């Protein structure tokens, strides 16, 4: 940590920390949920196994993070109450992860953009001042390195595979690119967390993300899309239409039978 950051370090408020940890948790939860829907339906058994692995890791991360968020909040909400009994606007995942499994190219493009982001974020958090978050991040970082290897490999294979796979991959990338803007656009919560030394600032995440993603796109012979005008802010609870359906499915049993133990 730089001297300037040390001097400026202040404790993050419980609200900022709660929302921030939920952002991380929801990113993993919704992405894990989306991958879960593909198991048994992917292009070959090996992909079923690979996507199941990643999905399992992400659900595992979400459980640790949600439990921690519940403790910060201090309102006795456990991982399941937070996962199954919040509504759309109380979910703070980046809008990118709720985008649908349109085809395998979308799945891989979404995964690549998220893996590269989580890789940098977890790396920072693992060195940050919040011990609990640092531990969760260190564990998650190992998993994310594997995820990034998987998505980068597939992005390259599909980009540099056949004419059809190249087109599909480019189409997915173009469609998903607008959702990446919020990943690097800090708001008050991000700034407060950064000032407390829990995470670094998002501009440094952006630099490394750019480098990693550009490398993969180049090898994959894919064109980096231009940034577009409209920005999404799922991390503030402003989602696309897709999240509602994802949650309706995910939360169905808990909502239908309130108070039951499973």
């Amino acid at each position: 940590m730089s001297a300037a950051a040390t001097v400026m370090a202040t404790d993050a408020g419980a609200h900022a920390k709660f929302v921030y940890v939920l952002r991380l948790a929801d990113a993993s939860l919704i992405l894990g949920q989306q991958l879960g829907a593909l198991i048994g339906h992917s292009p070959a058994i090996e992909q079923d196994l690979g996507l199941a692995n990643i999905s399992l890791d992400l659900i595992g991360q979400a459980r640790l993070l949600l439990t921690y968020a519940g403790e910060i909040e201090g309102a006795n909400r456990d991982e399941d109450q937070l996962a199954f009994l919040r509504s759309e606007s109380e979910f703070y995942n980046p809008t990118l992860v709720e985008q649908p499994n349109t085809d395998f190219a979308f799945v891989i493009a979404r995964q690549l953009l998220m893996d590269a982001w989580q890789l940098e974020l977890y790396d920072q958090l693992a060195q940050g001042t919040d011990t609990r978050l640092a531990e969760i991040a260190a564990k998650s970082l190992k998993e994310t390195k594997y995820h990034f290897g998987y998505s980068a490999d597939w992005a390259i294979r599909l980009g540099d595979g056949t004419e059809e796979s190249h087109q599909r991959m480019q189409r997915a990338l173009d469609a998903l690119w607008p959702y990446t803007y919020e990943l690097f656009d800090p708001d008050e919560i991000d700034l407060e967390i950064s000032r407390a030394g829990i995470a670094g600032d998002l501009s440094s995440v952006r630099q490394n993300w750019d480098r990693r993603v550009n490398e993969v796109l180049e090898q994959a012979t894919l064109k980096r899309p231009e940034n577009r005008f409209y920005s999404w802010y799922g991390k503030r609870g402003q989602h696309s239409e897709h999240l509602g359906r994802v949650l309706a499915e995910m939360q169905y049993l808990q909502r239908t039978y309130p108070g039951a133990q499973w």
Partner: protein
Amino acid sequence: MYTQALDQLSKEHEHTPQIDEGELNARFQQRIDNEERIEPKDWMPDAYRLTLIRQISQHAHSEVVGMLPEGNWITRAPTLKRKAILIAKVQDEGGHGAYLYSAAETLGVSREHLIGQLLAGSAKYSSIFNYPTLTWADVGAIGWLVDGAAIMNQIPLCRCSYGPYARAMVRICKEESFHQRQGYEIMITLARGTPEQKRMAQEALNRWWWPALMMFGPSDADSKHSAQSMRWKIKRFSNDELRQKFVDFTVPQAEYLGLTIPDPDLRWDEETQHYRFGEINWTEFQEVLKGNGPCNRDRMAARRRAHEEGRWVREAAQAYAEKQRKRAADNSLKVEVVS
């Protein structure tokens, strides 16, 4: 990547000079009787090979199709812990499928060819997966009853005469036993839950009990492959023996749950020390086998859709691998020119 050559049964297996077929057969049976393991390169009768290809590939297909009914609940699992366990379980099934296709390949047939048979509808898979998972309790019932029945069937296969199959089964059985426990644990939770959950559990038992008994196959009198498979020690117990063992094992578990087995004829027989149970509906069994079960069409449609929609991905992977090989070859050529 699977080559065509794998699809052709090796000629040297078919004709070994000097020793006649009868003698080879006798020696083969002697090895089986001595409890020796048969390995891929050993001589074996064509019928033994074909029986194993049929059985192992059906088993592999069952694992892969079996991912669907439970996979149906991954996105709706009621807690994150249950979701994680279910994902791991469905993943295990995919792993078993891959593992079993590999075991079948040691007999000279490719996975691609076998999957082609499944998609064309000419290969069978376990009928049980043609029943629907309508509630979360079905996930519990599948673990408890279907995996429970699978274990009964599969534990003897760990001693099957064909080495690669036997070894695959050792690993698979360990995982199945974990699956069975997690299924029963779901049932315990539901049976002790709200009245609605208890009803859900009872209805799931009603749905899965008879199909689970059918998993052991036709009764011994009607089982066309059984006798020869027993002689070859591919099979160690008869269908009816295993089915009885399953009933004896499972009835007390249902009692512990406070659930009722949907069989008015079920009763304990002091004399034989076994449960007696009612007649299985063999017409239903035959109809489901023929493709007329509640979910046969859905299951095959899902497998075909995944295969078709994944075609461009598999083609891309192959094209990329070829490009890489060509690049590597070009590079080594350049190195030679430079040096």
